């Protein structure tokens, strides 16, 4: 249901004074071009997170159906005022708030006449949705929220979008480097206030252009430190979590220019199914996100969250564990882990899904007329899973009949368990490994089944 995401700047200069600086004008043109695409997209909801809407008591969700005012920015009033009247979807805001609260977060809705909509949101909605063609939902940025809380907020948004069922475009209003010039400037020759900031901005934009959203989220803290990023660049944590914490996007940088010394850019990210050599290079977190969509914390990709921090990583103890086992006959892992590891006479396999080796294509999927996933065939996926496991075991000197323990993850237990069981029995009914079956909300790629196996060599 998430069609696209955009990262956009929120300075009023772009809206109110595009003629005074070439870069500001180009940013406005890019903004308007995106606005036209959004209008044509068939989207039913714009979800906006702005670093300029500060909150301190948890997070706030705007549910006034028609917030209306004349905005005069506290800093940039010399450029003029911005009258606004927006169309807000209050039902989504309420749902988002409720889901956030269910996940233990402090959240409230706001519906007060005259509540000040922040400049970033106003600028974004004015330029992206000038005719109010699509209702918006707006969420605040808690100034104290650290990575985990911000990721949880993103994850709650994803759950709300899925539950709401409307085609949604996500808009993340944030600057990149945020080092404003603190005196009046020659506007026509506005430039990024330091070469280092500019270098950092370009580096991140290159990554985003390649669709590497999660990689950018991973370096956000360093970027914030080095380039004084807007609100610690926490917006990217929210966005990445909302989008699924991976790098499988088609990225496009629509524009990049200085605004009063800061780095302002417009980026588009479209979810794709492209195969990647890796999912995440590293993860600073050492605890799983509370109440993620999967809800179990057991997924194979979450082994990352148990890893020591980068600084604390120790050399591998060679005596205890042999080298990692990888094979071309199974799909590439979606993170920095091998297919299997041998310890003594046992093989420990990573969670293995049904993706095809080499191409990474997911078998057994059905699609609707717009190319969205409409369903899956659990029998096809279970067979593919077990065949992948067979290949790994054989390449490691073992076989299916030497499996001793299996953990099964199903995304739709109620619908799929019986048919899964039938296929499973064909392969392993006589082998009789011990087994645990767990229902999960989602897996790292849009697959319906994943198996975690221990086998004797």
């Amino acid at each position: 249901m998430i069609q696209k995401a955009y990262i956009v700047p929120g300075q009023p200069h772009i809206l109110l004074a595009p003629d005074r600086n070439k870069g500001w004008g180009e940013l406005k043109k890019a903004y308007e071009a995106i606005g036209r695409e959004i209008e044509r997209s068939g989207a039913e909801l714009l979800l906006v997170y702005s670093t300029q809407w500060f909150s301190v008591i948890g997070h706030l969700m705007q549910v006034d159906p028609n917030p209306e005012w004349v905005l005069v920015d506290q800093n940039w009033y010399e450029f003029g005022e911005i009258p606004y009247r927006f169309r807000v979807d209050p039902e989504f805001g309420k749902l988002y708030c409720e889901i956030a609260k269910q996940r233990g977060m402090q959240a409230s809705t706001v519906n007060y006449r005259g509540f000040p909509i922040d400049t970033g949101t106003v600028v974004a909605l004015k330029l992206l949705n000038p005719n109010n063609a699509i209702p918006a939902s707006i969420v605040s940025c808690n100034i104290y929220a650290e990575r985990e809380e911000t990721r949880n907020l993103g994850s709650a948004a994803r759950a709300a979008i899925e539950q709401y069922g409307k085609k949604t475009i996500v808009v993340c209003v944030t600057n990149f480097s945020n080092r404003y010039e603190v005196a009046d400037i020659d506007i026509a020759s506005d430039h990024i206030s330091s070469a280092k900031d500019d270098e950092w901005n370009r580096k991140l934009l290159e990554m985003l252009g390649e669709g590497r959203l999660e990689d950018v989220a991973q370096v956000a803290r360093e970027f914030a430190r080095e380039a004084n990023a807007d609100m610690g660049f926490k917006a990217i944590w929210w966005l990445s979590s909302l989008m699924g914490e991976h790098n499988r996007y088609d990225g496009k940088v629509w524009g990049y220019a200085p605004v009063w010394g800061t780095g302002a850019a417009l980026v588009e990210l479209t979810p794709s199914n492209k195969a990647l050599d890796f999912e995440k290079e590293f993860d600073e977190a050492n605890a799983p996100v509370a109440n993620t969509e999967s809800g179990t914390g057991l997924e194979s990709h979450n082994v990352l969250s148990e890893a020591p921090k980068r600084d604390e990583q120790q050399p591998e103890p060679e005596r205890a564990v042999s080298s990692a086992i990888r094979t071309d006959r199974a799909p590439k892992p979606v993170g920095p882990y091998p297919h299997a590891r041998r310890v003594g006479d046992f093989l420990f396999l990573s969670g293995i899904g049904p993706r095809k080796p080499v191409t990474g294509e997911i078998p057994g999927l059905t699609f609707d007329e717009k190319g969205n996933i409409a369903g899956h065939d659990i029998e096809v996926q279970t067979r593919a899973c077990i065949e992948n496991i067979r290949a790994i075991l054989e390449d490691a000197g073992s076989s299916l009949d030497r499996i001793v323990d299996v953990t099964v993850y199903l995304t739709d237990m109620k619908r799929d368990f019986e048919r899964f069981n039938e296929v499973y029995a064909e392969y392993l009914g006589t082998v009789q490994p011990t087994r645990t079956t767990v229902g999960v909300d989602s897996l790292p790629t849009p697959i319906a089944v994943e198996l975690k196996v221990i086998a004797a060599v």
Partner: protein
Amino acid sequence: MSQGEIIGGLLAPHPPHLVYGDNHWRNEPKSECGWEVLRWGYERARKHFLAKKPDVLLVHSPHWQTLIGHHFLGVPEFHGLSVDPIFPNLFRFNYDIKVDVELAELIAEEGRRDGLVTKMMRNPHFRVDYGTIVSCHMMNPDWDIPIVGISSNNSPYYFSNELGQAQMIKLGQATKRAIEKSGRRAVLLASNTLSHRHFTTEPEIPEDMSREHVYEHSGYLWDMKVIDLMRTGRTRELISVLPEFMDHAVSEVKAGALAWMLSALDFPDYPGELYGYWTVIGTGNAVVGWDPQLKAAATTQGAMAAR
């Protein structure tokens, strides 16, 4: 025209909770009670300073944050609704403010002479921030005295506490000179809380005073230390420890209002009068006033207390 003077300075914290607790007709939300110790403190301060018949109240607010220099409200009257973006459930205030634009322009000019960047905000649709409103309202709920509204420059957040404070001291001196030139009798309001770590959840009944206490012991210790310096007239010493206070207790004095006011008052060496101290969602708030007329008698008292 006789020479103007500063007839008082008040550390005037601005939690919207105080206006909410006050149940004034201008504020839409209504309460049963709340934060009385501070509100009663404000009442006593009000009684003292309004009896001196000031011509103008000057307020420096941390909730009008500006990046490029120091800004001044530059329109004679502002009318509107101020909704606190953080506590909209407590503060939706219908304001009707008269501004002493002439004095504001004089301060801006004096500041420029001292090398500060200053600007006049001339848009009548500008929404006055809740920090300005709360401090002014608690000092003068009748709103019958014009104000000068001054923004809080972001330099301490951008560069360093020390650099920000140095700018505030300059601005304070410029303010003093401008007031003297203007012939006005002025009361200054420094709209800052002290220790500023606070709870991030709100009780179901916001005015439930059984939930109100200081957020952390170290913040309280800092508050007592700086209040002691105020009460014993050691404001130069106070200024020297403020940067440390800003870091250790995340104090809102970082925004500069207290340094600005103490500088304009020429760093009082006589005791400040503590009208009240209490917490608001865990932050430390003190209402402390300095009356230059009391300087002679108070200096002796301060010196004795210091011994």
